[in-house]
């Protein structure tokens, strides 16, 4: 597919570069998914009930974005270490699909609904779907190493 020799990539020529990048990736998703989960728990009526969903959304949005940017920078670098392997990996493909849906969902439906302090049933549905999407992204990411 790519005419590219991964052995020339600095990531593959240093013992620490790749694990360090993974650590940055994990810290990035603790920020992004962790902050989204706080809003989702509120939508589910299971946490942070002193604040409204809209308030929580507003206050976590910048940190969610920081986490997403860290992930979207570290992720492609990890990918660059062996592009052909990733492209042929069914779990990686699933992850990219789920990630795309999760990001679009987060900035459309999730944002609109959480920002308007929805009725409990709608909030539960939207928060639950959000958690499921992000958990499936994490699961698929881990399974890249096992398929």
């Amino acid at each position, binding site marked *: 597919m790519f005419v590219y020799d991964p052995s020339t990539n600095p990531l593959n020529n240093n*013992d620490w570069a790749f694990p360090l990048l993974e650590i940055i990736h994990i810290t990035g998703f603790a*920020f992004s998914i962790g902050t989204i*989960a706080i809003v989702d728990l509120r939508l589910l009526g299971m946490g942070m009930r002193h*604040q409204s969903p809209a308030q929580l959304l507003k206050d*976590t949005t910048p940190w969610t974005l920081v986490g997403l940017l860290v992930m979207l920078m570290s992720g492609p670098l990890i990918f660059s270490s062996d592009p052909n392997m990733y492209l042929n990996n069914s779990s990686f493909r699933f992850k990219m699909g789920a990630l795309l849906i999760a990001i679009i969902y987060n900035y459309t439906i999730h944002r609109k609904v959480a920002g308007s302090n929805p009725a409990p049933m709608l909030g539960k549905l939207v928060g639950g779907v959000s958690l499921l999407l992000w*958990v499936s992204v994490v699961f698929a990411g881990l399974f890249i190493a096992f398929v």
Partner: protein
Amino acid sequence: MSLLAIFQWLQSTEIATALRESSYAYPIIMASHLTGMALFGGMILMTDLRILGVVMRGYSVTDVVGQLRLWKRIGLVLTAGCGIFLAWSKAEFYYHNPFFWTKMMLLLLVAVHALIFRRSVYNNTAEIDRAPIMPTNAKVAACLSLALWVGIVSAGRLIGYYEVKP
């Protein structure tokens, strides 16, 4: 019985062998371990950053610490529970792995951190909220917590990269 013998025995138990050899259980537990970090690690970050005055400045420390406490506990039990099974299934490998022991020492320090700061910071948020400026010991607690947890994630990831010398 030496510690190594105990770890070897742990690895030889039926449940460890079954876990190690299963093609689904092992990665599912590992993925749950990672999901725990994603969902609940973020809450630790947010709590500490609130104390440092970086995030959620409109909420009282009491609100953030109090309302996330239950979820952080559930998260810790889930994440640590999965971690125990992961280590158990490859106990002898972990015994020889310096990053595993680094991680265990850092977790021990988390317990020490709780012993030192729980009373004065995390169970004392009403007073912290009344203070005109954030008390230094609360800031120290938050910085140490951030450093410890980032260290724990890092050491955890590095466990997988250590090659046991023959």
